[in-house]
């Protein structure tokens, strides 16, 4: 993905071609939808520009970090499995599931709060 997708603050690019998807909410109502900036945020996060991605939409870096965390956790779980009993593994799995749910809930709250603050700022300006 890092190879075929690139992005700047304004556009995401697929193999050098600009992806021009216009948000219907932004076009008709002048306000961004919750997923605006998600593609650019994910691509910028994959390229290591977490700060820029966060400014566009926290959902991008949060999704990438969540996926990375899940990937590393699975690698660690695969290593553990041969050395732990079934009961131990059930406990570990339960803990992983709860952590993933908590992370997902927290990420959603941050994402929606950020979107609401953007909308509020725009409404106050107008």
């Amino acid at each position, binding site marked *: 993905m890092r190879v075929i997708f690139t992005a700047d603050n304004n556009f995401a690019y*697929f193999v050098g*071609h600009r*992806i*021009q*998807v216009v948000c219907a909410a932004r076009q008709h109502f002048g306000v961004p939808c919750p997923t605006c900036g998600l593609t650019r945020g994910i691509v910028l996060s994959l390229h290591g520009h977490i700060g820029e991605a966060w400014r566009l939409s926290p959902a991008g870096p949060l999704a*990438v970090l*969540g*996926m*990375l965390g*899940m*990937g*590393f956790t*699975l*690698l660690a*779980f*695969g290593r553990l*499995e*041969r*050395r*732990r*009993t*079934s009961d131990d*593994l059930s406990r570990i799995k339960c803990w992983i599931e709860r952590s993933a749910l908590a992370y997902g809930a927290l990420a959603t709250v941050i994402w929606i709060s950020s979107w609401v603050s953007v909308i509020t700022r725009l409404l106050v300006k107008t």
Partner: protein
Amino acid sequence: MAFCTNCGAPNQDAAQFCTTCGARLSGVPAAPGQPPTPVGPSLTPPTITPQPAVSYGVPGPPLPPGATYAVWADRVVGYLIDSLLVGAGMAVLYLIVGGFFAMLAGAGSSAASGMCCMMIILFPLASLLVGVYNRVYLVAQRGSSIGQGVMKLKVVDGNGNLLTMGTAAIRLLAQVALSFVPVVGPLLDLLWPLWDEKRQTLHDKAVGSYVLKMP
């Protein structure tokens, strides 16, 4: 400090027998013709309660008659068939969309540009839709994706039942998550069945699924 291999109690390095259970300590050869003379508080050998064997890992599903855990090569061939089908499906989609654009706007540069833009949007969208249909819907409904069906593979849970849609979706999500770990993630996920006792990949372990080769 030497530790008894029988009961694990600590002993002096020079000791020939364990002071707790009386067993001969390893590394100290018995003198020829001389029976071992246990030392310690008790001269009678202690009664050792047999410990139940500890089994590691998760027990697998009940295997139907004639079924075995799918070998790595079968799984890879199934995966390649799935990938080829997705590629072929998308190529057909591109041709249809391309032809549609060419018919509508003629052979001008604007048509080519429009088609290019459409393809860029279509590529991730088509991959997602075909992937979800093949790897989630079909796996939950009949136990195998198209490629797995060709190779007579079946995905089941720990009880031998088909996966639910939610479990199949999490299984796909786990595979995607592993692809976010640069190089090591997808590579280890792909190769894991080579050394795993139940031939599971890491995304199988995430949801406790097993891939069986049906007779």
